[in-house]
C-alpha cells in the first residue's frame, strides 16, 4: 500500500520511487528514465509502427503487440521511456498501469477509420487518470499516406534511410502533388475532428485551454509508413516534456525527495483529475 501511495502522490517520480521501495539494493548502473511517454490507441492504428519508424528509422510489418513494450530512448543527455501499449481490448486492464505517472500521452487514431477516433474517447481517455497531473496530450492521426498525397513522400521522419528517396520526391511537393502511387482512401477523420477531441480531452482532464499547449500544435497527422511527421511528433513532445525532466533532475539531486514539495512545485491548475 505504501508503495502505491507514493506512486500516486509523486507521479513523475514513479519509476525511481518504485525501485527504491521494492528492490533494496538499487543498481546504480541502470539508466534511469527521466520521463515517461505512453502511446495509446485502438488496435491496428499503427502505434508500434510509429515508434518503430522513429527508433529504427524504418517501416515493417508488425504483429499485434502483446501487453505493452517498454523502450528507453536516449535523447541528448536524457533518457526517455516510451511505453508502446497493445490496443486490444484483451489488455485493457493494464492500461492504467502503463500510464501511471506519464508526462505525455500520445493518443493515436487511424485517419481512415472514424471509429478509432471515437475509441480514444470511449476507451482510452479514462486510462490516463493515472498519468501525471501536468501530463501533455498529443492527438495523432496515423496512416496519413493513405489519404494525403503529400504524406506519401517521406519528408521528415524518413531520416537517413529514406533520405535519397525522400529527397527526390519532396522537391515538387507543395506545388504539384504527383499522382499518388496508390489510390487514396476516403479520409474519415479530419484534423478539425482531432482538434475538437483535443479540446474535450483538456476539459476531461480539467485543464485550462489557455494554459495548455494549443490544439494546432498538439494534433498531428503522421505516416509511419513514409515517415511523414513522425520525427516532428516525437521531437515536439520531447521538447515539451523537457521542463518536467529538468525539474525532476533538480529534485533528484537532493537525495531525499520531499513528496509534498514535488507536488507543490508543479504548475497550479484550476482543476485536477480525480
Amino acid at each position, binding site marked *: 500500500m505504501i508503495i*502505491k501511495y507514493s506512486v500516486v502522490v509523486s507521479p513523475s517520480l514513479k519509476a525511481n520511487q*518504485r525501485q527504491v521501495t521494492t528492490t533494496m539494493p538499487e543498481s546504480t548502473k541502470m539508466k534511469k528514465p527521466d520521463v515517461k511517454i505512453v502511446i495509446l490507441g485502438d488496435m491496428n492504428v499503427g502505434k508500434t509502427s510509429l515508434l518503430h519508424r522513429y*527508433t529504427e528509422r524504418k517501416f515493417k510489418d*508488425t*504483429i499485434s503487440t502483446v501487453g505493452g513494450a*517498454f523502450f528507453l530512448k536516449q535523447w541528448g543527455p536524457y533518457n526517455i521511456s516510451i511505453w508502446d501499449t497493445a490496443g486490444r481490448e484483451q489488455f485493457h486492464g493494464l492500461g492504467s498501469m502503463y500510464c501511471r505517472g506519464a508526462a505525455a500521452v500520445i493518443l493515436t487514431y487511424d485517419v481512415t477509420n472514424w471509429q478509432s477516433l471515437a475509441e480514444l474517447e470511449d476507451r482510452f481517455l*479514462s486510462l490516463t487518470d493515472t498519468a501525471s497531473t501536468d501530463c501533455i496530450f498529443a492527438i495523432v492521426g496515423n496512416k496519413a499516406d493513405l489519404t494525403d498525397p503529400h504524406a506519401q513522400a517521406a519528408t521528415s521522419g524518413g531520416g537517413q534511410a529514406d533520405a535519397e528517396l525522400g529527397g527526390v520526391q519532396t522537391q515538387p511537393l507543395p506545388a504539384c502533388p504527383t499522382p499518388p502511387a496508390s489510390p487514396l482512401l476516403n479520409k474519415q477523420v479530419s484534423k478539425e475532428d482531432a482538434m475538437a477531441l483535443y479540446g474535450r480531452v483538456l476539459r476531461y482532464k480539467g485543464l485550462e485551454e489557455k494554459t495548455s499547449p494549443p490544439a494546432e500544435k498538439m494534433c498531428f497527422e503522421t505516416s509511419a509508413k513514409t515517415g511523414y511527421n513522425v520525427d516532428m511528433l516525437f521531437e515536439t513532445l520531447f521538447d515539451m516534456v523537457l521542463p518536467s525532466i529538468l525539474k525532476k533532475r533538480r529534485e533528484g539531486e537532493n537525495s531525499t525527495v520531499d513528496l509534498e514539495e514535488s507536488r507543490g512545485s508543479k504548475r497550479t491548475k484550476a482543476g485536477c483529475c480525480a
Partner: protein
Amino acid sequence: MERGNQENGIREEVKTDEPSSLKCTDQTVSKELTRTISSENHINSEDDDALVDENGMKASQERPLEPQTKDSTADNHLETEAPSDGRKEEETVDLPALSSVDSAGAHSLSISEDTTDSIHDDSGEFVVTMLARAKLEEQGMGVKGTSSPLLETGTAVGNPAHQDEDVTTERWRQHRKHVFVLSEAGKPIYSRYGSEEALSSTMGVMMALVSFVQSGDNIIRSVYSDEHTVVFMQRGPLVLVSVSSSRQSEQQLRTELLYVYNQIVSMLTQASIARIFEHKKNYDLRRLLAGSEKILDGLLNLVDSDPSFLLSAVHCLPLASSLRDSLSQILQKAITPNLVFSILIAKNQLLTIVQEKMVIDDARLDPSDLHLLLNLIGASSAFQAGEIWTPICLPNFNPDCYFYAYISYLDPPECTVCLLLLSTDKEAFYAVAECKRKIEEAMQSQNSLTAIAKAQSYSVSQVGVSDLRHFMYKPFDVPDNYRQLTQFTSPEMEAPYCSEEEKMRLLDLYRDMHSRIHSSSRPLKLIYHVAERETLLAWVTSKFELYTCFSPLVTKASAINAITKLLRWIKKEEDRLFIRYPPKYSTTPNPSKSSRGGKGGADHTDSTDNGVLPLL
C-alpha cells in the same frame, strides 16, 4: 490406411490394433489428460525392465489405465466434463457433408439457441448486457461503450494472410488439419484457415451436431469418414472442433485441441471466459481475441511440427552442466519480491528454469504451460528491441489467474537468447526489469552469451550407432525425487529427413507409434515396425519412453543392440542433455502480501488465494 497393415514381418505378440477407426472406447476425456501426466501412470505400473527377453521382443499385457488419476491438474479440467461419463455416442457422418451443409446453417443455429437456456426476449438480454458491461467495467476490463454490432464486425478485420482464403474452394477443403473454435451459441471464434464470418454457417452445423447429441444426454466425441477424423471437445462455454486428414488418433487430436483451448485461456483466463458467457451467451469472443489469431496459428503450426507437444515434454538445449549451473546461479541471484519463475531460452529451447521455493511446493510448471509461453514468445518476436510486460495465464498452473510476464532478448539484434521472468505482481515491471539488468551484467562478466551461442543441438552420429537415424527419448521422473519438469531429448533430423515433407513424414510415423503405444483400448509397451523406408522401434517402460528410427535394413537383433548402446550413451550425457535439478530461490518470506491490498485509482484487488492477480 497404411498403419495397420504395414508391419508385416517380425510381429511377435505385438498386436496391431483393430482396423483403427470406428473403435470407440469409453475412456472419457480424462484419458488424454492422464496423457499429459502420463508419467504418473508409468510410475505406478510395475517395473518391467526385463522387457527384452532373449527373443528380443515382448509386448506387455494390456493394462487399462486408471481413468481417474488423482492429480490437481486433471481435476481442474475434469469438473467441466463431469457429467459426461457413461456411454459416449459416436456418429458416423459422411464428411463431405460438412462442406455442403451450409444451407442448414440457419436451422442449426436455432437448435443451438434452444439448448442454451433463456435470454431471448430483448429486454432480458438488454439487462444482462448492461449487467455484463457494468461488471466487466468494474473489474477493469474495457467494454466498448458504444453500440456493439458495428464494432464487432469492425474489430474482426485486420488479419490478412490465411483469413482471406476462400472457404468454398477445394484448396481450403484439402488442408491437412482444420481447427475451429466456436461458442456454445454457435458463434465463430477462430478458424485456422479462412475467415470466421464465411464459416459461420459451417460452425452453426457443428454446433447443431453438438446440441443434437447433447439433447439425448450424450456427448459427441468424434466422427470418422474415410478421409477425415472430426473430433469435438467442449470446454466450458467453448466448443473446439478438429477436422483432420492426418491419420492421428482421436486422443492426439483431442490433446491438440486442449492446447488450443489452453492458449485461449492463457490470454483470457478460464474464469473470465466463463463470466463473459454467463452474462451474454452470444458474446463475440473475437473482440477480446482480436490480434491473437497469429498466436493460435503459430501454436497449430508448432503442434504439427514440434514433437514436444506430442510427448508433452520440454526440449532443452544441450549444454555443459557447468555452464547451465552458472546460468541458473545468475538467475537465482537476480530476484525481487513476487518473482516466481525465471526462464532462459535460446533458439526456442529451454536453457534453464529457476522457480520460487514456495511455488514449487504446491505446483510445478507443466510442460504444456511452458509450450504456450514459448509459442507466445515466438509469436511476439517481430518487435524485439523493447521489453515486453504482459499478463499471461498458465492454465495448468491456475486457469483463473494471471501472471505478469517480462520478456526481453539479451542479445539484440540477433535475438536468440530470451529472458522470461514471471511475477505475480502487476506493478512489478520496473523491479523485474531491474532483475534483467543484473542478469545481463552477470552474464556479461562471465561471457555467458558467447558460450550459449556455441551451444547447439547434436547429431545422431555422436551416439556412434550405425543404422540409427533419429530418436526421441523421454525419461520419467525418478519416483522419490520431487516432481520435475518432464523433458525429452532428440537429435537434429538429418538425411534423409531434410525436406519439410520428409520431416513431417517421420513425425507422422512417430505419431502413429505414439498413438498405438498409448491406445486406450490396447496400450502397448513395445512396437517394432518395419515400414517401407525405415524401421521404427517404440518402447515404454516405467523409466522412459523411447522412439527410434533405423534404416530399413536393420535387423531386429542389431536394433536391440543399438538401443542398448543408445541408452548407455544417454546415461553418459544425461547432465548435458537435461536439466537435472531445477534450482529454486526464495524471494520473500511472505510473497503474497505485497501484491494485495493496493488501492491505486483504477486498480482492483483479487479474489484469489495465492496472490496471483487477475487482470479482469
